[in-house]
């Protein structure tokens, strides 16, 4: 009946990569959106509730001297990217363990196990962007030409997050403690990054050191959409260099460890 294997049109490695990456990413999104009634709303609700809490504390309770008006827009411009970063780095700790069976039985390029997390969280982030637009309209924040920095911010953040994911994902397979350590560091980083405040709100001198946190430069790029003064060239350049260095380290660590990871998963 069956004759020789029908030659399947040869596909380039890039096509194979894309197909597998998209299969896993869309599955992640489907699971999150299709299985719950509120679906999409959940990815908006989370940053929204946080933003409202901080807005309430800093505008209604405490006499605030940080950030810009309207504060809720200022806050969301930092919180939404943070949710992407936090979610992707947090999930990267389980990149290999969560789908161990698939990792063990397929030969797709292994970086996909990390990149699919960054991509699916990134899509959720972009899907949540309309929230800022709505609040900007309600509170009358004017978009500026700084909005052109948005793609740069997204690319930089993707580079940074992929780099960190490539470092963390394989290491967690061997050092289980790292999973909790990462959670702790993330909590610290939330307050150490200019999310509820701006880089300029820091005491003089401290802002220099704070700009070595790549998130500082990246968030200043996001905020430039509404608050052009927030754009801090020094912080952005440092963020770009740091992100690329972290990505390079990530690729190195990942290459070194992938053999051992495949034996261990």
């Amino acid at each position: 009946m069956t004759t020789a294997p029908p030659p399947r049109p040869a596909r380039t490695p890039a096509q194979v990569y894309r197909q597998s990456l998209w299969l896993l990413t869309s599955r992640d999104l489907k699971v999150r959106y299709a299985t719950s009634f509120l679906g999409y709303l959940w990815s908006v609700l989370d940053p929204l509730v946080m933003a409202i809490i901080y807005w309430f504390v800093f505008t209604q309770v405490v006499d605030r001297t940080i950030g810009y008006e309207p504060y809720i827009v200022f806050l969301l411009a930092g919180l939404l990217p943070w949710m992407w970063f936090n979610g992707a780095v947090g999930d990267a700790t389980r990149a290999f363990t969560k789908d161990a069976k698939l990792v063990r039985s397929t030969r797709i390029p292994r970086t996909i196990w990390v990149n699919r997390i960054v991509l699916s969280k990134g899509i959720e982030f972009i899907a949540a962007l309309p929230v800022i637009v709505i609040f900007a309209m309600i509170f009358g924040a004017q978009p500026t030409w700084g909005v052109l920095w948005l793609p740069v911010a997204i690319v930089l953040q993707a580079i940074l997050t992929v780099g960190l994911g490539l470092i963390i994902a394989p290491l967690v397979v061997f050092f289980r403690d790292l999973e909790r350590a990462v959670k702790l560091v993330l909590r610290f980083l939330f307050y150490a990054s200019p999310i509820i405040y701006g880089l300029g709100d820091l005491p003089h001198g401290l802002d220099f050191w704070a700009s070595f946190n790549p998130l500082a430069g990246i968030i200043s790029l996001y905020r430039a959409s509404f608050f052009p003064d927030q754009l801090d060239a020094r912080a952005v350049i440092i963020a770009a260099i740091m992100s690329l260095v972290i990505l390079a380290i990530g690729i190195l660590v990942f290459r070194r460890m992938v053999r051992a990871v495949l034996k261990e998963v």
Partner: protein
Amino acid sequence: MTAETVIRVADAGIRFRRNRRGRRSFKDLFAGSKRRSRPNEFWALRNVSVEVRAGEAIGVVGRNGQGKSTLLKLVAGVMLPDEGAVEVHGGVAPLIEITGGFVDDLTVRENLYLTAGLHGMPKREIDERYDEIIDFAELRDFVGTPYKHLSSGMKVRLAFSVISRLEEPILLVDEVLAVGDKAFRDKCYARIDQLLAGGRTLFFVSHNERDLKRFCTRGLYLDKGALVLDGPIGDVLDAYNRDYGAGITSTIVD
């Protein structure tokens, strides 16, 4: 035979840790691979060289834990050798995990699309073959059932059905057929015969002498991680039986 070489295993070796507690240190990570200290490791395979030509059917023989499955995993590309090289030309359909690597929480249908897709089958082709795969696995009434609720027989049926339909030139089968019931096993055998007749290359791990003789022409005998003999399947089985008595037919399942 002048068929082209599809699998070339050159001096391949892979080592594993003996115990789970053997921690790797950060120092290990950055030290050169030669200088690393690895007290608790053993070579699951070492100095194994094999060349396989298109259309060959190869049976892998050896006692448990001698490296048979590891060799298949290297050929499947799901593990990477620490030494030497494994080159595979053409796609591989690997049936090496008894469960086929399906995800517990997804339904049969979702698993089928995910796994076939990750093995490189374009969506359009999966659509075309979907009915055939489900019917072969006899899971028509269970397409919406989460994978974890299937019986172990059903799981194997699904795995074999999907993997054998990937239409890849190389098929790897690792003892999974021992699990299904007889009726399904016969179906699988018929399917393997069909694939072999169609010019596929087969890599077959089994403890069942009858099966090995039925499908394979060439045998590889692995012992303690080394390739002891590479020859016609009859000679290989004789050598194995000589070394370990005639126990091969009685131990069907691992």
